[in-house]
């Protein structure tokens, strides 16, 4: 586990209704840099993200963010204190226009040029400003979701499969941006493109059936013989 922890997850247990998904998860996220969360379908990656952002109440364990206990904080308070989140599904406001989606992102951002910056990263969005976000193509939607989350100036950014359905060229672009960004803030990424994930991340966790099965520096994990077994269905 990295030494200085910005977000400290201790003994986290969470689930849906009566079915528990996460078991005794301990994770530390550093002040800066990327952390990858890997695991096969249904391993509990999304569940972990939801628990961090507060969408899902944890049944056990503690969350410390920036030195404060946020276990009992409501989602919006966590977000306002500096956590940004790009969900895996339903990550845009489908009926709102692209412009409004971005406006929601910048509700708590005083910088008036922030939106323009996002539009230079994703020029495609600039051509779609008045279109309801629900009619965007799959990739455009992802870009919008990432843009929206970045507009909040988060200190910790949670990305749940940000490149799913995104064109190769754009993935490259996004990766560069994220690597750039990881120099200033902390990023947690769930990603199926191993290369991408491990290029961005300094550290990686592998989940298996809701438990941390493997963890370590990105390079170590990558070369771990067990890794493929945890990722196979």
């Amino acid at each position, binding site marked *: 586990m990295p030494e200085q922890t910005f977000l400290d997850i201790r003994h986290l247990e969470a689930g*849906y*209704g*009566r*079915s528990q998904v996460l078991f005794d998860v301990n994770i530390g996220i550093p002040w800066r840099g990327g952390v990858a969360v890997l695991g096969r379908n249904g391993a509990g990656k999304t569940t972990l993200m*939801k628990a961090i952002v507060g*969408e*899902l109440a944890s049944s056990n364990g503690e969350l410390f963010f920036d030195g404060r206990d946020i276990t009992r904080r409501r989602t919006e308070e966590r977000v306002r204190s500096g956590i940004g989140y790009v969900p895996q599904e*339903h990550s*845009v406001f*489908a*009926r709102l226009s692209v412009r409004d989606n971005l406006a929601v992102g910048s509700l708590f951002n005083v910088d008036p040029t922030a939106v323009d910056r996002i539009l230079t990263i994703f020029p495609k969005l600039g051509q779609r400003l008045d279109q*309801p976000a*629900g*009619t965007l193509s799959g990739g455009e939607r992802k870009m919008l979701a990432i843009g929206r989350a970045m507009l909040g100036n988060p200190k910790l950014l949670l990305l749940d499969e940000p490149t799913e359905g995104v064109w190769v060229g754009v993935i490259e672009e996004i990766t560069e941006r994220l690597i750039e960004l990881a120099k200033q803030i902390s990023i947690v990424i769930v990603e199926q493109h191993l290369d991408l994930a491990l290029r961005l991340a300094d550290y990686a966790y592998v989940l298996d059936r809701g438990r941390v099965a493997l963890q370590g520096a990105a390079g170590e994990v990558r070369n771990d013989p067990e890794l493929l077994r945890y990722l196979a269905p």
Partner: protein
Amino acid sequence: MGAAKQALRATVSRGPDVSMADSGLDRALPARLAAGRKVLPIVEGAVLIAALILPLVLQDYLTVFATRVIILALFALSFDLVWGYAGILSFGQALFFGSAGYGVALMARDLNITSIFLVLPAGTLIGLTTSLLLGGFLLLGRHPSSVIFVALGTLTGSYAADRLARGWYYLGGQNGIPSIPSMSLGSYDITEGPVYYYFALGTLVVVYLLCRFLVRSQFGLALAGLRENEQRIAFFGYKAQHLKAIVFAVGGTIAGLAGSLYAFHEGFVWPNMVGVVISTQVVLYVLFGGSGTLIGAVIGTVIIEGVSFWLSDNYRDIWPILLGVLLLLVILFRPLGLISYVLGERERVGSFGAGPKEKRNAAP
């Protein structure tokens, strides 16, 4: 509540992509069904036994009252089938109930026909025809119709019919048609009382079993798909609109049967019988008991009617307020209806993937 969800989706949908990007599938669902214990048959059996012995223990006038409740339960069943199973919010179900009532009342008044073998089929047919016409208009067509549109369309239909009945002299206007003679079986008059009670109960049981057979069949699964996401199953090749129209018509038919029984039992018909008041009432019955479970409709009717009867007797001045409070409490704390006290979510939604044993019984 699947159908309700669908309703929301339908209200807001502006195109295929948007509607499917709908959020909030994250509601916690019990992951596994509570190991095989079925409570539904037990509840059904208990209700049936209670209904069978009721007239033996009740005073006469209460038997008459109970008959009315049974007929209303039959009516509630028609709504439950349409809403609880197919997700069509027929907010004007009274239209079919009342039209049939008026129809048989006119037969009795003007043509002197009261034979049970003529009036009941006639009433049923009226229910079928009106529901086919209205359903055809509301449900078929290029655009899939949203739940709210159908709700409003049926409500308007029922409202307009109410207005028509009030304004039309031939139908007795506001006063309705009073003093309908009794239904007859040969030379025997079926008057209110135990005989009528058991007759109504028998009808209810038969219709109930037919409905039960229908919703448990593969057709029932198609309905379940329909109420979850009509568009999705259209892409499988289901004629979604036709399925809807069929269920709507079946519901209308049952409502028509109930309406004719009701008219003869009460001895009069009046505009409210086609109107918004009864239409709303039947929605209340079903939601109160638990929609999407046939027995819920019956239980809801019995309890609402029973409680209002009791309240109006004991808290004469404030009983509507008390009834409102009771409804609100149940809706607040049991949004899935009273039946959800004993019935698990999985069993309520139903599953059609019967185990191999049950499967073999079902296959002919």
